[in-house]
């Protein structure tokens, strides 16, 4: 590069790429290829190897976003995933992706990015008025201001605040891309591919261990790509490339670039997000965009490196002010400078390295401002020892920095970029995901991993506080040798490549005295002033500070801000930083899209549905379906001319009660109970007795929880001395089965009894109505007597139908009519439904759905899920006498507690409106006909309600205090929610055929 320093104060940089004024020579770019892209509609170009941030900087764009609260103009602070500021909306349409860090977004051909949180434009943002109002918008502002009236919060305050303060907006369209999940196992997971991680992977890989090397970056090498150090006799970047080539050749090593380890979970499990399609306009055909991996590891080496910390001074957030090491990364790796003229503000030697590297690339160094009076000298540029940056200027980007010199004199320098070198913080995040608690290391004035690390994890390199290249290489090699030898592999004798081993001492310098409007957390707009206010108002504990000011609570979890905030609070509180403590880091390490957690589990797969055997037949009939548990059940079957569901349901009920109806009841849980002790077992499970149930008979059974509350109800049919079939409600099938297995295995392990769920194995149909027997006569083989005498109410048995198909027949009734349930192996379910419908033509057979089923069971006063609601006892249900006192059963003892047996307990009753046209709603409460309507005067509540075509009015089931003694009484049903007040009369819950004549017919 020719020397252009004579051309004036601002040295001209020879444009290495046309139209990219800030492009430098060198770097790790493919300059033969030019990638066009747009930002806020304006066209720019970059090269493969660029990030969006580096390409924008190359094009002279420093302003990339507006801040969260004050809408301050912001540019990138970093060159990595710790970035708080440069958040943009990437892509457009359904693929729009808000809050994407420009510093990690890989540039691709045709990339479209838009700035966010500004109106009407990034350069002129009307909401920047917040910055002027900042005296009012301090920490705790929302808590103090928007306190009352409470209803205003949802309606007024929150929408306004959300509009004014915020990040990007969602597209509100379904994500068109695929996401996936996967599982991997390895001996050793190495997190981070800088010198420590690379050396660890190489050492372990050569030993033959199964190794995964993961790095969030698209190019492996970590900090080696950003530095000019050499390793052995080549550049760090070349050594990294050579090592990647060797690792790629090893079949036992898997390299996972573009993969972020997001969390360290129990038992050596790590979460990882691999971005397969984020660097493309859209993912390749058949490739997921991202994969969420669950990595099961035996050992892990955390080589996550370190994050440079900024220095805090007034107006330290202007575009162009960034980490000094980030400037170095942009220069060395991305061949770009944020501005032609740069100053460095440092408190340690590392800042001078940035100055030297930038200078070597031809960037004009206006000054190196070093807080140390004994700062090292330089020959190529001015070093201001013992000086500090006190303020900056520039509305949309840095133009001037104001400096207080060692002698107290002030000086103003004109610069477009200012690098802050406050030292390095080890990236301890993943060590904290379980029980690790970082400890303070005075030598580097930073927290290093401490406490109990996740089992199997060792930390190496800068993440462990070893900040030299040699330190990283040797710690990586040692950690890997130790890990693989514990697993029984042997490593080669040490052949560590030579590298710099400069002693690293970090003198802490957190903030410039007098700084106030000085930003700590740039993503959440937390300033030094906020921390001072938090201290004054007593929020001094580190966790209180965090929540009161929101310091470190943004999506970057305060990677660049927490330390300075802690330092300032420690100073105000008169404590040391370790004395104040540190906040914890939690997964995920960087934000993860919800789509990635969902993977393929979306849409139908998110909520799978189970289909009944008659589903396709019902669909052909035009049935309307409803979800019950995971099942899709026919809700009703509309006929031509029916315009309202009530018409269909009323018809189905009337037709069933008049002749015969069919309903698919396959979804009810079926548990097969076998063994010589089956009856003994059921005696323990059910509140009522089953030991004496004869073979060929069914009995209604009520199960209690151990605390005496009803768990579930159903029937148990005894097919043989040692064989029962238990049915459960649809929703509780899994829970009851689990409960029965618990009792069997944990409480009565010596009983000879076996359980298996056969819900899916048998298709089962209720055939109900006065003509049900006549209909069944046409399908049940003649050898079987199903007359009222031969097969009475509550009979059961194995039969054959349709000329030899094995089936089970139960004479049970939910509707209150003469009724049966007929079960066949599930694969015959569809055929049986069609056969029953054909055979029933003579009787005008009617299929009915769950609505008609519900109406008929309310008419009959049968309890269901609404009544078995987890708060009701057998006594509440009117089934108190079923709880046998002659035997042990689950729930028996605790059901006798006084609290469950008060004289004014709730009892199940029926109710009907005094005015037959009035409405009854489930959920309404019962009050005296006059007097107050409040909780103190509450006498009960309605659980189920329906229009009864049989009664010609709405009817309901309710729990009412002393309900059994109050038949005929009038009460007021109120539902303040639906603004309903109806006078009702209490009656028996058995509206239809209370004597049970029909079902015994």
């Amino acid at each position, binding site marked *: 590069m020719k020397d252009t320093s004579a051309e004036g104060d601002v040295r001209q940089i020879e444009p290495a790429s046309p139209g990219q004024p800030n492009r430098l020579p060198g770097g790790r770019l493919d300059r033969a290829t030019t990638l066009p892209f747009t930002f806020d509609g304006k066209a720019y170009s970059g090269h493969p190897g660029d990030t969006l941030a580096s390409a924008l900087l190359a094009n002279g764009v420093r302003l990339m976003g507006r801040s969260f609260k004050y809408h301050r103009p912001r540019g990138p602070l970093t060159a990595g995933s710790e970035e708080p500021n440069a958040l943009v909306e990437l892509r457009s349409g359904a693929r729009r992706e808000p809050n994407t860090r420009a510093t990690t977004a890989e540039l691709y051909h045709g990339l479209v990015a838009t700035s966010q949180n500004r109106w009407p434009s990034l350069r002129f943002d009307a909401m920047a008025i917040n910055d002027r109002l900042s005296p009012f918008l301090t920490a705790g502002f929302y808590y103090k201001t928007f306190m009352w009236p409470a209803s205003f919060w949802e309606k007024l305050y929150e929408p306004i605040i959300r509009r004014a303060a915020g990040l990007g907006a969602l597209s509100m369209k379904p994500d068109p891309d695929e996401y996936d999940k996967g599982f991997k196992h390895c001996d050793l997971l190495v997190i981070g591919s800088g010198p420590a991680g690379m050396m660890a992977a190489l050492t372990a890989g050569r030993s033959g261990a199964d190794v995964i090397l993961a790095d969030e970056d698209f190019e492996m090498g970590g900090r080696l790509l950003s530095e000019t150090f050499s390793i052995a006799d080549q550049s760090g970047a070349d050594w990294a490339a050579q090592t990647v080539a060797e690792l790629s050749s090893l079949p036992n090593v898997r390299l996972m670039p573009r993969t972020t380890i997001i969390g360290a*979970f*129990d*038992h*050596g*499990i790590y979460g990882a997000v691999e971005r397969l399609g984020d660097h493309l306009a859209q993912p390749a055909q058949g490739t997921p965009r991202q994969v969420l991996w669950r990595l*099961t590891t035996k050992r892990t080496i955390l080589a996550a490196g370190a994050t440079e910390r900024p220095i805090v001074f007034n107006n330290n957030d202007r575009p162009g002010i960034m980490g000094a090491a980030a400037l170095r990364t942009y220069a060395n790796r991305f061949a770009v400078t944020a501005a032609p003229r740069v100053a460095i503000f440092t408190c340690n030697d590392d800042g001078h390295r940035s100055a030297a590297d930038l200078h070597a690339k031809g960037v004009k160094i206006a000054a190196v401002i070093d807080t140390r009076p004994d700062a090292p000298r330089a020959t190529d540029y001015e070093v201001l020892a013992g000086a500090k940056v006190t303020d900056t200027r520039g509305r949309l980007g840095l133009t001037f920095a104001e400096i207080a010199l060692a002698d107290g004199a002030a000086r103003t320098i004109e610069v477009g970029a200012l690098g802050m070198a406050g030292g390095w913080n080890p990236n301890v995040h993943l060590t904290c995901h*379980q*029980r690790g608690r970082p400890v303070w290391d005075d030598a580097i004035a930073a927290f290093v991993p401490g406490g*109990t690390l996740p*089992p199997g994890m060792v930390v190496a390199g800068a993440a462990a506080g070893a900040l030299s290249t040699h330190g990283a290489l040797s710690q990586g090699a040692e950690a890997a040798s130790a890990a693989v030898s514990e697993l029984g592999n042997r490593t080669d004798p040490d052949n560590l490549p030579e590298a710099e081993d400069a002693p690293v001492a970090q003198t802490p310098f957190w903030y410039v005295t007098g700084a106030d409007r000085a930003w700590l957390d740039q993503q959440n707009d937390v300033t030094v002033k906020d921390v001072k206010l938090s201290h004054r108002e007593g929020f001094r504990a580190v966790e209180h500070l965090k929540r009161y000011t929101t310091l470190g609570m943004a999506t970057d979890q305060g990677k660049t801000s927490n330390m300075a905030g802690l330092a300032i609070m420690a100073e105000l509180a008169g404590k040391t930083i370790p004395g104040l403590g540190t906040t914890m880091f939690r997964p995920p390490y960087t934000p993860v899209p919800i789509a990635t957690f969902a993977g393929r589990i979306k849409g139908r797969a998110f909520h799978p549905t189970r289909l009944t055997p008659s589903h396709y037949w019902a669909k052909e009939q035009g049935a309307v379906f409803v979800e019950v548990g995971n099942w899709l059940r026919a809700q009703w079957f509309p006929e031509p001319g029916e315009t309202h569901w009530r018409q269909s349901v009323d018809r189905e009920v009337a037709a069933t009660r008049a002749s015969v109806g069919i309903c698919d009841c396959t979804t009810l849980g079926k548990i097969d109970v076998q063994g010589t002790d089956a009856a003994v077992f059921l005696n323990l499970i059910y509140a009522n007795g089953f030991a004496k149930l004869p073979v060929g008979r069914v009995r209604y059974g009520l199960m209690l929880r*151990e*605390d005496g509350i009803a768990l579930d109800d159903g029937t148990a049919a005894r097919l043989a001395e040692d064989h029962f079939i238990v049915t459960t409600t649809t929703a509780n099938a*899994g829970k009851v089965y*689990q409960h029965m*297995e*618990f009792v069997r*295995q*944990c*409480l009565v*392990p*010596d009983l000879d009894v076996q359980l298996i769920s056969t819900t899916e194995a048998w298709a089962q149909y209720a055939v109900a109505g006065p003509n049900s027997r006549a209909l069944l006569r046409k399908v049940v083989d003649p050898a079987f007597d199903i007359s009222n005498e031969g097969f009475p109410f509550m009979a059961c048995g194995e039969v054959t139908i349709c000329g030899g198909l094995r089936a089970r027949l139960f004479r049970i009734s939910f509707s209150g009519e003469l009724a049966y349930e007929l079960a066949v192996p599930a694969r015959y379910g569809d055929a049986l439904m069609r056969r029953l419908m054909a055979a029933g033509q003579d009787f005008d057979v009617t299929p009915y759905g769950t609505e008609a089923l519900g109406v008929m069971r309310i008419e009959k006063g049968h309890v269901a899920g609404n009544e078995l609601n987890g708060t009701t006892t057998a006594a509440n249900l009117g089934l108190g006498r079923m709880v046998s006192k002659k035997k*042990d059963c689950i729930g*028996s*003892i*605790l059901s*006798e*507690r006084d609290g469950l047996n008060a004289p004014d307990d709730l009892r199940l009753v029926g109710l009907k409106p005094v005015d037959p046209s009035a409405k009854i709603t489930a959920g309404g409460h019962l009050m005296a006909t006059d007097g107050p309507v409040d909780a103190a005067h509450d006498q009960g509540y309605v659980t189920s309600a329906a229009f009864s075509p049989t009664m010609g009015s709405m009817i309901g089931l309710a729990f009412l205090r002393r309900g059994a003694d109050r038949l005929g009484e009038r009460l007021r049903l109120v539902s303040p929610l639906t603004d309903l007040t109806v006078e009702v009369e209490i009656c028996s819950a058995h509206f239809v055929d209370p004597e049970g004549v029909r079902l015994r017919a």
Partner: protein
Amino acid sequence: MIIDHPLFGPRDASEFVYLGDASLMDRPDWKSETAAQDFHAYAYLRDNPAGPHRELWFHEGGDRSWLVITRDTVTHEITRVELARDVARKQRAPQ
């Protein structure tokens, strides 16, 4: 988490559901004079140790076995996994 099932070896915790304290296996005698108090303690009173804890897990996505797992509630380390049925039988065996 990984649960080392006595019959199947290491399995992912997502195959299991959690119930709670293994003392639920020690169901009192319903005929005892103190049955009401005993069942109250059985149903409601639990230790909440910071450290090793014996607890019941159900292999719902597997063989439907109930397991007694000794897990450290502080570290989540699992030190022992037994079939609940074996444990229950041992408890019932004459001393």
